[in-house]
């Protein structure tokens, strides 16, 4: 397994650097926004990966509710944590892009606002996991994840309608995408997905090790107490 990991790591590194090169150089410069539009190739794929991770978190939480399998719980924790990291990237690159183009740091763009709300929900998810002192923390976290997922469509529609009342510039530009830009976007997306997979896998092993160590320590203090 170790060998497979390193091969994947090298491949991801290659893919990432190629996609970076493609985004900065190969992709054509957009007429209206100029070079700054290239932020698009990092901003949008990060958002897609974040949403994918949160989707996996929801599925893992439902599985945990049904089967109470620790594996599902750890997957839920890991995807939430890494998802928040990718979400932070989106929330930082968004305003950096909006500033030069529209002269404002924040715009109630549909995707950007949805990412912000999701970020808030999953940060509260991680806070709950850290502060919960009950032995049933995974269960409480799973319940919160399900509530979060139920909230997403409501958030989507409320912001969508909110935006029709307060028109705001759209980040990432809707409309048809020039195919020469399209493949660069997709290659970055794949690179980010591979990166996300690597980070999740490492974080998963770390969590498993951490829980084993805590258990061993607890068992030991119990034994020492008994002697």
């Amino acid at each position: 397994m170790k060998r497979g990991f390193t091969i994947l790591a090298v491949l991801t590194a290659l893919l990432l650097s190629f996609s970076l090169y493609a985004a900065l150089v190969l992709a054509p410069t957009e007429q209206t926004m100029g070079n700054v539009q290239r932020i698009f190739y990092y901003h949008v794929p990060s958002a897609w990966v974040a949403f994918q991770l949160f989707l996996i978190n929801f599925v893992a939480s439902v599985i945990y509710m049904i089967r109470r399998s620790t594996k599902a719980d750890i997957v839920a924790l890991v995807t939430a944590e890494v998802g928040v990291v990718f979400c932070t990237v989106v929330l930082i690159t968004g305003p950096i892009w909006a500033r030069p183009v529209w002269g404002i740091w924040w715009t109630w763009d549909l995707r950007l606002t949805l990412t912000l709300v999701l970020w808030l929900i999953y940060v509260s998810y991680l806070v709950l996991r850290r502060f919960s002192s009950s032995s049933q923390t995974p269960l409480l976290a799973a319940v919160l994840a399900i509530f979060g997922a139920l909230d997403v469509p409501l958030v989507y529609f409320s912001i969508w309608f909110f935006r029709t009342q307060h028109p705001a510039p759209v980040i990432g530009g809707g409309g048809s995408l020039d195919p020469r830009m399209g493949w660069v976007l997709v290659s970055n997306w794949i690179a980010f997905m591979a990166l996300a997979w690597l980070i999740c896998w490492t974080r998963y092993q770390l969590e498993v090790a951490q829980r084993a160590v805590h258990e061993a320590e607890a068992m030991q203090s119990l034994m020492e107490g008994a002697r």
Partner: protein
Amino acid sequence: MNFLTVTRATLAKDIRLEWRSKDAINAMLFFSLLVVVIFSFAFDPTAEESRRIAGGLVWVAFLFAAIVALNQTWARELRNQVLDAYRVSPAPAIPLFLAKAVGNFIFVAALEALMTPLFIAFYRLRPLGPGWQLIPIAILGTWALVVNGTFFAAMSLRTRAREIMLPLLLFPLSIPALLGMVNSTTAILTGETSPAFWIALLVAYDVVFTTACLLLFETVLEAE
């Protein structure tokens, strides 16, 4: 039907205790008054402007009052671990949740009823749109906060920083409901747009989360 008797008994017990001790009521009344006065100092707009921002102010003030009330939901049950007495009994979990949620709703609605005249006075509010629709909006909006609030108050029982945990869990999820309440109120006050969409959103929000709370409350209650 035991379900109803338990709900009624728990609700009656809570109201009687609240009426008897009154400690929470007085604290919250004073807190809400403070919130209204401070908001009025902070924002002193002309009549036209006030109609535009009053919706947001009123609901943020109600949100604060609700949070303070929701934090008290399980205080009495915690004092002598009375919750264990309920959990040991054959009574199902849902009546307890419903009684607590309705109790909170009555409590927060009372606070709102007292704060509203102050807002009207301080901001010289006169709705241009159909004013009567503010009632269903208030009911739907308050229930949206209270049903999730009671649920998350039960969830934060199992955490260390209980008082801060409730808002942390409740606010992100309540964003759609808050948008609904604020925008529908503003729509009616300014009379420019129709609040129909926002009211529909609030109804959807209430239905979705009331169901989720009823289905998942037992899991949270039993999470020893």
